[in-house]
């Protein structure tokens, strides 16, 4: 392959968002040595992300979506839309981290740099047009998040979380590499679009080894999006990691996992849709079931939200199972909505953490409506949204994925989703009940900051606005994916 010929500076343009993020991360690392006020570093992180957003905005109408870096990098609407999710995710994470990391005495510059690197990894995953690039992005994201999970070095739980996540992550990476090598062995390429052509021209869609490769890829991506039974790490890691990182991980890597799952299954193995749908159906049912049922018994809100995020992965999967463009649209739509409501809920959890008070137990929410009516009202909105009660955005998200399941003829799957959605109401609304029906045990002091207010305002407004005007987001997703 001749890298020299035809390579010019103009080819870097499609990569400007990623380059911006990486450079921001590196600058943050360097500044950490000289800048004492870590908040300044955080603000710089946000500024870097905003620059990257601007770069992506400029590239949204970029015509050459494919032939970038010898067809290794895709810059289509699909990738760009996922990047928007990652940007908002990282900005919200930084906003809710300011005061929290100080309280946890883990306010260090690396934290923000690692957030940048992890986000870059996700962006590369979303843009990957080649399995090797996909793997690189995934590892960049994964390695950064392993460290982030263990950032509270003095806490055993945090260390444990990092170690577990690392080992199991390595295990899942092995599956990914197996899947990639089997695919390469059968088709002789790692390019996602070429695979699709070769699968049909070599007529290996019914080949058992090909099936095995797809299974391995699903397992590896399923690990990232915490599908049952590859979700075992999630509760422990979510509980042990710093809460802001839990929030970050419950959205970012999950969305990135869905991005690559959607691209690989729809683009590379579109001909094998019946086969992978039939694997995903039981996984999705199991995921919804285990997530919702075990969440019932949790007393720690971080663990509860961990299982809830497992359950939501099951719902999001419904759109992918449908195997249609509309199905994919409904899933991506759900992801965006899920980000806002989940981030909002975690923001409230973080607010409860104050000097000398963990605020992670469900019991701590008792009587919150009396001591902090505003925070309780916001939590109520997020819990309603996570349950899927109109007119919040959560309802819209669930409505469309379930509708797609019905349109695809999976009636029983739709019914299962509704049933588990009802079950999930129990543990979400229990938080609401604690807040509004019980008397406060002790006065909870909230840790407030302007950036936290911003994050809460943004998430609340989005949860409500997208619930009332869902077509705005839906049309954006549709135009991005169909482009």
């Amino acid at each position, binding site marked *: 392959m001749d890298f020299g010929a035809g390579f010019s500076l103009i080819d870097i343009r499609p990569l400007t968002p990623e380059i911006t993020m990486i450079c921001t991360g590196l600058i943050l690392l360097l500044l950490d040595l000289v800048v004492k006020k870590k908040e300044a570093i955080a603000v710089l992180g946000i500024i870097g992300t905003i620059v990257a957003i601007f770069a992506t905005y400029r590239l949204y109408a970029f015509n050459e979506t494919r032939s970038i870096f010898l067809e290794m990098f895709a810059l289509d609407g699909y990738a760009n839309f996922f990047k928007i999710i990652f940007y908002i995710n990282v900005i919200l994470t930084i906003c809710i981290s300011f005061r929290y990391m100080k309280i946890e005495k883990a306010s260090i510059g690396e934290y923000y740099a690692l957030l940048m690197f992890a986000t870059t990894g996700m962006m590369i995953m979303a843009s990957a047009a080649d399995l090797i690039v996909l793997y690189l992005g995934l590892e960049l994201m994964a390695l950064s998040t392993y460290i982030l999970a263990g950032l509270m070095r003095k806490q055993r739980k945090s260390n444990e979380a990092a*170690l*577990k996540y690392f*080992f*199991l992550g390595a*295990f*899942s990476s092995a*599956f990914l590499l197996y899947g990639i090598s089997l695919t390469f062995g059968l088709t002789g390429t790692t390019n996602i679009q070429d695979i699709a052509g070769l699968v049909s021209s070599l007529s290996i869609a019914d080949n*058992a080894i090909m*099936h*095995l490769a797809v*299974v*391995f890829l*699903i*397992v590896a991506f399923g*690990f990232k999006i915490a599908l*049952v*039974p*590859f979700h*075992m*790490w999630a*509760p*422990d890691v979510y509980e042990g990691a710093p809460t802001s990182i839990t929030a970050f991980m419950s959205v970012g890597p999950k969305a990135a996992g869905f991005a690559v799952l959607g691209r690989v299954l729809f683009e590379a193995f579109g001909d094998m849709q019946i*086969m992978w749908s*039939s*694997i995903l159906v*039981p*996984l999705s049912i199991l995921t919804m079931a285990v997530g919702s*049922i*075990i969440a*019932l*018994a949790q007393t720690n809100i971080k663990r509860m939200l961990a299982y809830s995020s497992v359950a939501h992965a099951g719902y999001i999967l419904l759109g992918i199972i449908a195997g249609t463009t509309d199905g994919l649209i409904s899933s991506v739509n759900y992801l965006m909505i899920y980000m806002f409501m989940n981030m909002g809920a975690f923001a409230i959890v973080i607010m409860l953490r104050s000097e000398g008070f963990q605020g992670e137990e469900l019991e701590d929410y008792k009587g919150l409506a009396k001591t902090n009516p*505003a925070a309780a009202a916001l939590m109520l909105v997020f819990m309603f949204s996570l349950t899927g009660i109109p*007119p919040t955005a959560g309802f*819209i998200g669930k*409505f*469309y994925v379930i*509708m797609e399941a019905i*349109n695809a003829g999976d009636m029983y799957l739709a019914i299962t989703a509704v049933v588990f959605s009802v079950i999930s109401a129990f543990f979400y609304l229990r938080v609401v009940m604690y807040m509004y029906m019980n008397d406060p045990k002790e006065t909870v002091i909230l840790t407030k900051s302007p950036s936290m207010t911003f994050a809460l305002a943004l998430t609340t407004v989005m949860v409500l606005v997208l619930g*009332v*005007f*869902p*077509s705005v987001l839906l049309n954006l997703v549709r135009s991005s994916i169909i482009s």
Partner: protein
Amino acid sequence: MKYALIPLLPFIAFVLNIVFGRNYIKDRAHWIAVPAVFGSFVLAVSAFTDVLSGNVININLYSWITSGDFHVTVGFLIDQLSAIMLIVVTSISTLIFIYSIGYMHGDGGYYRFFAYLSLFVFSMLVLVMANNFLLMYFGWEAVGLCSYFLIGFWFHKKSAADAGKKAFIVNRFGDFGFGLGVILIFLTFGSLDYMQVFGQAGSLLGQTIDLFGYDVDLATLICLLLFCGAVGKSAQIPLHVWLPDAMEGPTPVSALIHAATMVTAGVFMVARCNPLFNMSEIAMNTVAIVGGVTAIFAATIALVQNDIKRVIAYSTVSQLGYMFLALGVGAYSAGIFHLYTHAYFKALLFLGSGSVIHALHHAKHDDEQNMQKMGGLRKHMPLTYRVFIIATLSITGIPFLAGFFSKDEILWRAFLGGELGRFLWLLGTIAALLTAFYSWRLIYLTFHGSYRGGEGQEQHIHESPKVITVPLMFLAFGAIFAGYVGIPPLFVEHGDKIGEFLAPVLGHPEGHGTHVQEFFVMGASIFVALAGWIVAYTMYLKKTDLPQKIGSLFKPIHTLLFNKYYIDELYSRSIVQPVLKASDKIILAFDTYVIEGIVNGLPNLIGLFSRKFRTVQTGFLANYGLVMAFGVLCIIGYMIFVR
């Protein structure tokens, strides 16, 4: 398009007040809320003139959800019916908002009060302006929620919090039926849009549906389900119990929500669905009978109550009964006409009583709503007294005030409605007699005689400030003149302007009678109005020992009425307590068996497969890896053996 602002302005006021009220707006909340509702009023007037010149507005603002054949749109229909409702809701809201500035002055939750009240106005306007059933249902539930917030506004008072809960729960029963009705409409017509549903209403004729093995007339079923909602919201028998308790809320709330607007939503809804109700005689008769019986039933209770607001509350229930009576005999426009006049004189009664309560409160009266502890307030509050007299003359149907025209129209239409109609007319006329009696009783106990409150309070009783009395005067104006849009043709040719205006939506009532009959009906209602007045005058002004004597003479009846027919007790014994006990048990059982079952049982279940898997979430890394590997093997096995 600009008419979308009619509900939007109060909504903006709500958002501003709820977000910034606590820290920034505080006591200036009315500077946002009052201009907002007044703006809505101005727009409503403009919409009304638009409709008057023949433009019916029906626009879809946007689609909320579109998926295949399923469309949910947000859109508004401003026709003759909703135009009148818009005028009623926005004009009364504006006056009551102004009144609240004085009434709620200094309350700790001042901004919260205006926020909720604005949210209520928004919801009510959405309910009225909706052009499809789902949006109406949204408004319907939203006004219920606001009512709950506002009844329990003083939530630290246990009785207020309980009353709020009661209103909410009782309404659940009715709304459940209403929700089913809406679903059934969607299943039948495949749409929730008014125009499409009402356009196909004729196809309901003769259709039946299989319900538990019985063939039920579809139209009847739909209408009765819808009517369930109306019974709950408009406090008709047997779901009337929440309204009197709702008086725990601040008086402006009672006036706006529980007299003038929200409780009339049921009447509005039935009138709106008249193409459906016309398809079912059974449903129509049910509406008429429930209305007629409620009218007289609530009036009897009002005879002996001592709480000034409760008397007016029962009076409201009774007047709502009149409206349903009118709807049930097919005189939809008469029902809406009464809704419109009632809004003014009933709001006036409530706000007047609020003025009295306000004055007594400032005089440190310890039982400020008990009429037995009032008396002689006429000299201290001359203005309140005068508007009270006007409202009473209006509600009792004294000729040429607003209430006379609308009540007379209802009774006349009932009279023409066959045998059932005659019977209902009789009920209505007796109820009118009772109305006159309890209304004048209220006046005499409150304003005449000598002061019966505590020592040293009387000199502290003063007329309320301007901000309270000016809205009263506006409402008094309405209570006198609002009826002149519906003068019976007997007096003025084409005098029934409102009936003709509403005819495109509500149709013309059937039945014609002679002039002699009409004079008879009118004479009878004037006669009972005067008779009730005279009896009250004798009992409470001339021979003040008479009530005592009569009370002891008919002691069982008095006790029965005083205790509101023991219906609350009946519900408590037969429904509330058993449900509470059962739910306690269910929650306990759920906790012990389901939750603990999951905590303990699920690991045990898996333990059956492998002893090492005693608890899945062991925390041991190796186990987690094992589960993953096991999962992969299962999938591969599934691939090989199942597929």
